[in-house]
């Protein structure tokens, strides 16, 4: 179920990740009147990160609905509205504030279908910004998508390209169950090519963003650009690194990972989450379980330091995964035959 990598001959337009997200919402709002966007400052303010800018004028305050600061209340309202037949897109300003709505997400959105014996599915989409890197300090820099990927009943997406930012929303809305979309704050301004393939976007598979034969670099979201840069640096050293973008954090696409391991026999996982208990641990454990005998070296991880994110730029950058650390890790697994 590997998602196809854009065909090179596909028609090309360039836009930012932010604009791609907005266009996706515009299409969905035009196509289905059950769809509406609800969240803090999505309307008159134009969206905390300007993602929904302009939508209020086109769709009005009913469908581009500003909410009070009541994360648990309006996320739960999105759940109820979904059960009531709507197709809500709930925006939580950032993952940091999603903790206030976690009870609703875990105990209602993810649970109602099973608890009701299959009667109450929740066709809800929740979008939120995640990640660090902009000196927003300890309360505004979390990467908790790995936590959400632990919850049965949810599907977790992490668009890392303009195509995925443009394409993932519609299949997420078409899904009968709750889908959470994590947008890394450092990607909004990223310019990228929009290929024709976005419209056939799959939300169930990982993507090989760069083919390689010597080592597999597994990542997702905000660390994809850094990982691709690292692959470039390695290429200059004659090392052929394959880069896998998980895209879907739940379910995880084991097959794409295992096929790559069968090619390279060496793996580095890059994850902006705090190392202990991050998604990278699950990926490592699955490779252990399903490809142990394929490995020529232990799987290693490049994650964030286990510290509340400091404000000072040099400390924050030191805490986050960086190109050089990814390159070093790859070099180590390459000489890691012990």
């Amino acid at each position, binding site marked *: 179920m590997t998602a196809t990598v854009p065909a090179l001959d596909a028609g090309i337009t360039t836009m930012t990740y932010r604009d791609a997200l907005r266009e996706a919402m515009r299409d969905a709002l035009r196509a289905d009147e059950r769809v509406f966007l609800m969240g803090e400052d999505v309307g008159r303010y134009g969206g905390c990160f300007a993602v929904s800018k302009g939508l209020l004028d086109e769709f009005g305050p009913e469908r581009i609905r500003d909410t009070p600061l009541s994360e648990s*209340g309006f996320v739960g309202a999105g759940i109820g509205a979904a059960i*009531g037949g*709507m197709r809500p897109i709930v925006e939580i300003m950032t993952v940091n504030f999603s903790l206030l709505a976690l009870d609703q997400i875990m105990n209602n959105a993810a649970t109602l279908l099973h608890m*009701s014996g299959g009667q*109450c599915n929740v066709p809800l989409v929740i979008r939120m910004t995640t990640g660090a890197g902009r000196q927003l300090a300890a309360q505004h820099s979390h990467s908790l998508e790995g936590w959400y990927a632990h919850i049965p009943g949810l599907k977790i997406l992490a668009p890392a390209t303009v195509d995925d930012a443009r394409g993932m929303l519609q299949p997420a809305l078409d899904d009968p169950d709750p889908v959470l979309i994590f947008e890394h704050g450092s990607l909004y301004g990223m310019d990228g090519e929009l290929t024709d393939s976005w419209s056939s976007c799959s939300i169930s598979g990982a993507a090989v963003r760069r083919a390689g034969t010597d080592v597999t670099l597994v990542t997702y979201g905000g660390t994809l650009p850094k990982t691709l840069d690292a692959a470039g640096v390695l290429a200059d050293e004659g090392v052929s690194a394959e880069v896998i973008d998980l895209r879907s954090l739940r379910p995880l696409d084991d097959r794409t990972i295992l096929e790559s391991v069968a090619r390279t026999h060496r793996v580095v996982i890059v994850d902006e989450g705090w190392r202990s208990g991050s998604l990278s641990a699950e990926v490592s454990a699955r490779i252990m379980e399903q490809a142990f005998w394929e490995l020529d070296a232990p799987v290693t991880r490049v994650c964030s330091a286990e510290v509340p994110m400091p404000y000072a730029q040099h400390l924050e950058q030191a805490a986050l995964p960086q190109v050089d650390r990814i390159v070093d890790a790859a070099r180590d697994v390459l000489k890691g035959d012990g």
Partner: protein
Amino acid sequence: MTELDRTHVLELLTDMLRVRRFEEACVELYSAAKIRGFMHLYIGEEAVAAGALRALEPEDAIVATYREHGHALLRGVPAASVMAEMFGVVEGCSRGRGGSMHLFDAATRFYGGNAIVAGGLPVAVGLALADQMSGREHVTACFFGDGAVAEGEFHECMNLAALWQLPVLFCCENNLYAMGTALDRSESQTDLALKAAGYEMTAWAVDGMDVLAVESAMTHAVDAVRNGGGPCFLEFRTYRFRAHSMYDPELYRGKDEVAAWKEHDPIAALQARATEEGVVSQADVEDIERTIADEIASAIAFAEAGHLEPVEDLTRFVYSEAVAR
């Protein structure tokens, strides 16, 4: 006090007695370990569900708590499938996956069965939002206890409902205790209707032991909400005769207090008044009891004859079956 109508009284008595006898049977079945987990009895509070649900239409929605046997039965969920649910068999209204705390029935828009205190309120607000945005004149009735009022979610939902003028009816079952915590040890403002009014919504308190008072208050509130008057809040003052759950030693209240409240048993009260006014006879009640006894007996038989869901199906319903996993 207006005169009583015989058929009306018989219906109300039947509703309350069905719930009472059903739960009395549940107690025995719990001791017999046929029913497990947490089980919360509504005994003493039957007038609230009985009076309130009569005021709702089939297209209206209901969100309740873990103390919802009565609400489910009176909404029309068959006693057999409720009992089967508590037996954990696939014939149960939630296929045995929910149990006593999670009775669901989408067909009657009965949305549970929610065991996180105040956790059902946001869902109710959302159901009402969907109705409002779709121009449907439905009402969502949300039941919760006095303890829920202290939760942040209560505050967020009261404000959202009032701010957006949503067709939701908040039904607070104030039985004076949240487990062992008395209302005055939980709230700085113990007049809950007054507290609710502070959100700029119509709110009033009702004698929750008087099924007729509950029904008329609820009827007015439902009309107001359905006609676009925005949300409403009703505080039903009632009392739980039994322990909070099957594990509660009841250290926090005196037998005398409980006994005093039992003087106001909603069923006995209505029956007494109706007999006094001569609209209902002892024989009527005996008929009702017999019918109910039969209903419960067959419900238990149905549950006993139920089937366990195959273990291979454990992970069904984690995701919808429409889409391939």
